[in-house]
């Protein structure tokens, strides 16, 4: 039977929880007066991508997103309150899927950019779904959907770019162990 305790090691759980906390702190502390949809993606995807790059197991991004979502929901930081859980869990799941699909090569710039885009766009999609679910007219949601998608892609990509640099540095300094051309998940050194 599946158990988080046996699937993730204690170190991994601790690391993911800390990264979820970092996600929450970043979201709370870095309040930029930019009225551009998805601009927070530039820093929100970073802890998730780094976590997925370090843990290298399906579910790690989801866990980080869930922790962040619960914290944000609990503290009521954004206007979506409890729906934050869905938004940020979706972000984590998307980065998770990207990591799995790209063999956790997050030090690669294109891979990390795609993971950042996937996470930020997933957050946007859940945001749209929540808006529709609570009764916002479809026209209101759809009127800016194209522009919003572009801005989410741009900021997610920028966050992914920064993440790629950070992951590469972590590998270079030995914080993350990598075997050349490795696609497995059994050499985590977190």
């Amino acid at each position, binding site marked *: 039977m599946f158990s988080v305790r046996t699937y993730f090691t204690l170190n991994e759980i601790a690391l993911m929880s800390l990264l979820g906390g970092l996600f929450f702190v970043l979201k709370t502390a870095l309040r930029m007066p930019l009225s551009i949809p998805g601009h927070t993606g530039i820093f929100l995807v970073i802890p998730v991508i780094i976590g997925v790059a370090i843990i290298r197991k399906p579910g790690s991004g989801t866990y980080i997103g869930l922790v962040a979502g619960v914290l944000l929901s609990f503290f009521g930081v954004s206007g979506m309150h409890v729906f934050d859980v869905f938004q940020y869990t979706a972000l984590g799941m998307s980065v998770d899927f*990207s990591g799995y*699909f*790209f*063999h956790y*090569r997050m030090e*690669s710039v*294109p*891979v990390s950019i*795609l993971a950042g*885009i*996937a996470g930020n*766009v997933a957050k946007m999609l859940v945001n749209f779904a929540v808006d529709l679910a*609570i*009764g*916002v007219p*479809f*026209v209101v949601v*759809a*009127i*800016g*959907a*194209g*522009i*919003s*998608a*572009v801005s989410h*892609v741009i900021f997610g990509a920028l966050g992914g770019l920064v993440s790629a640099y950070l992951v590469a540095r972590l590998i270079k300094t030995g914080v993350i162990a990598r075997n050349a051309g490795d696609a497995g998940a059994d050499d985590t050194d977190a």
Partner: protein
Amino acid sequence: MDLSKRVAAGFALVVLVVGIFFVVQITVEEWLTLNPPGQMSPVVDSGETFHFTKTGFNYFSECYRPYKEPLPIAVSDDLKDASWYLMFVPLNVTPPYGGNPKLGRPGYVRVDYAFQNLAGTAAFHILAISGSSWRTNRIEGYGPSAVFVRGNATPGDARGPTTELTEYNDIQVLPAGGGDDSGDIAPYAYYIHFDPASGGLNSLHLTQDLSLVRGEMVYTDEQSGSFCLTSSGGNDLDEVLLLVAVDEVQPDDFALELKAQFIATDG
């Protein structure tokens, strides 16, 4: 599939998703061009209907209603010295966007009332909170507004359980039908605080004629009808309470039905 192909597929998917959202946006923009908002029907919330009996009047007051200083419920010669039984009805209890009166958007709250066996006179007033500041309607001075309905039923002889209002500011009021058996009203109550240093009497109004910006004093014998709660300035309102007061003990077969509905306007 090697990594480079996967990356290429990933970027293609991103382009596809963004393209789909642009198609949706352009389609909606075209639709709006053909159906300008000015020609659409105004947004009407589903509304909420309340039913009350005589036990709904859970407060008793000598003449006054909440404000930073005692504020009369009525000023006409026949009512100014009356004592009143009060109830507070929260009008914005439905979920956001789908529902009911929240004057956060431009618009007004339409209230449909229907009395059965009303004894004496019923008065309607509005109380609302914006941020931490409460406001209410004035019935004296410039721009008075309120609604008074006169009934002709025989008064009852036993009033329900009521709490006497001895203070009119910095008080907790329990909405009609609220609370539980524990007697602890705090989780269900509204804390009314009017800032002594500021106003609060000039922006909320009751009227049957929406062209009257500052509302009107309505005296009627109609046992059913409607009026509107309007706001003529200030910040958005977070909570809206309708104060219903009667100056007689109501008979056992008294009933009041209220339907409150937010109706959006252009601005």
